[in-house]
């Protein structure tokens, strides 16, 4: 179980490095899928089953799909894939950086690269995490509306900034 969590965390970091290595948006979205899926698995290991479900349904199934459709509309003829030289160099650099940070995390009971500490607790009926979500919908009140408003603003901001597609200033980057 510990090993499973370790692998999932590793997958999260590799996915983030793939996003940061500046490929074309299609492949960056692929990296985001990897981050979300691996992170979701890790949250599940820690007991947060509802968050995990929400992440998959709303983030991947809602936001990322809309993003993918929008990006496909202003599509790139020759997208920079993940196997391009510049992208690979950036990825190796970022993974090296995380490796350096990981080297500093050593301790007596967690020698080289085994510093990941699992948190296993007993099964409980009262899940703090699901309680939190129901609180936000119940006594949260205005906070829920504010979060919804923030999402709406984010949508309008994205639409306004990218207005005009290729006639405007936002262009596909090589």
């Amino acid at each position, binding site marked *: 179980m510990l090993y499973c969590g370790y692998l999932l965390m590793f997958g999260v970091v590799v996915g983030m490095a793939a996003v940061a290595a500046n490929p074309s948006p299609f492949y960056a979205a692929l990296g985001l899928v990897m981050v979300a899926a691996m992170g979701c698995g890790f949250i599940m290991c820690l007991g947060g089953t509802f968050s995990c479900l929400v992440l998959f349904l709303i983030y991947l199934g809602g936001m990322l799909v809309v993003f993918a459709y929008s990006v496909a509309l202003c599509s790139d003829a020759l997208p920079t894939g993940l196997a391009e030289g510049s992208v690979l160099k950036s990825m190796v650099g970022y993974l090296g950086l995380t490796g350096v940070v990981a080297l500093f995390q050593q301790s007596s009971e967690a020698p080289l690269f085994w510093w990941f500490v699992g948190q296993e607790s007993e099964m409980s009926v009262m899940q703090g995490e699901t309680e939190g979500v129901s609180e936000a919908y119940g006594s949260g009140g205005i906070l829920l509306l*504010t979060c919804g408003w923030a999402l709406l603003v984010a949508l309008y901001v994205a639409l306004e*900034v990218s207005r005009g597609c290729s006639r405007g*200033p936002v262009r596909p980057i090589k």
Partner: protein
Amino acid sequence: MSPYVLALLLFSLGLGTTMTFASSHWLLAWVGLEINTLAILPLMAQNHHPRAVEAATKYFLIQAGGAAVLLFAGTTNAYLTGQWDIQQAAHPLPIAIITLALALKLGLAPLHSWMPEVFQGLSLTTGLVLATWQKLAPLTLLLQIQPVNSPLLIFLGLASTLIGGWGGLNQTQLRKILAYSSTAQLGWMVLVLQFAPSLTTLAILVYIAAATATFLTLKLAKATSINMLAISWAKAPALVALTPLVLLSLAGLPPMTGFMPKWLILQELSKQELAPTATLAALTALLSLYYYLRLTYAMTLTMFPNNLAGTLPWRLPSHQLTLPLACLAIATISLLPLTPAALALVAL
């Protein structure tokens, strides 16, 4: 821009700052800061010019990075002290991280490099919003954290007054000068933060009045560089006669209002037995005074050589509201005698 979208964005700007003001939880403070960042992006990029979009991109990356570090520090604080309250005493490590994150968001030296480039890409109105409204929320958070990291705050303050003064010396573009000016003024505010927070409040209020007056003057004169300032005297002679006083108020020269915060801050620093700090702050203010004087010289004190046809431009009817400019210019010039009342107002 569609008026509905503009209304939504302006409302969100207000909502974000208000949320950060009203929150006692680090998460909600972060939400307010992020809403502010998001809402101003289309306003910055609204004319879809590549330079404006570049400024918006740089602003977004800096602010998002600062907000992420702030959230990380809030989470670390929750892990170390067990609570999320902003006003409860926090662990020193998150305090230091929060101070640096807010310094990045405010544009304090040595985290100031984004300011001139972002300001240069914006219209004067959006630059005004960036220099005044967007400073309120991070400054509020800085005012509330305790116990403060004293050497860090003094270092940020002195570095900002020094680099804000020094960096603006070589600029001819007015928006970059105002960016460095903003850094320098924020340095003064941060210097006195740990000793007399009411003086920080006073300083930001006086700065908002003075900066708004300056930006609105430049907008009316349609001037974005010193050369354009030089030919603006014929557009609004009465305004051009008053602008030196507004600029020197920004510089902190008596008898204008801008002297008030600097005076009181120097007094407070001396009371705290930080005489070298106070001296250094006063000396670095001389650097900014020089470029304010240069603007004054170019605009009012000198008539640049020009042919006769170039001296008098067409004065077309302006659609700019002049009441805010008039009120703020008078406030910036003449409110120094009200110092005791101002102190009573901000003593929170």
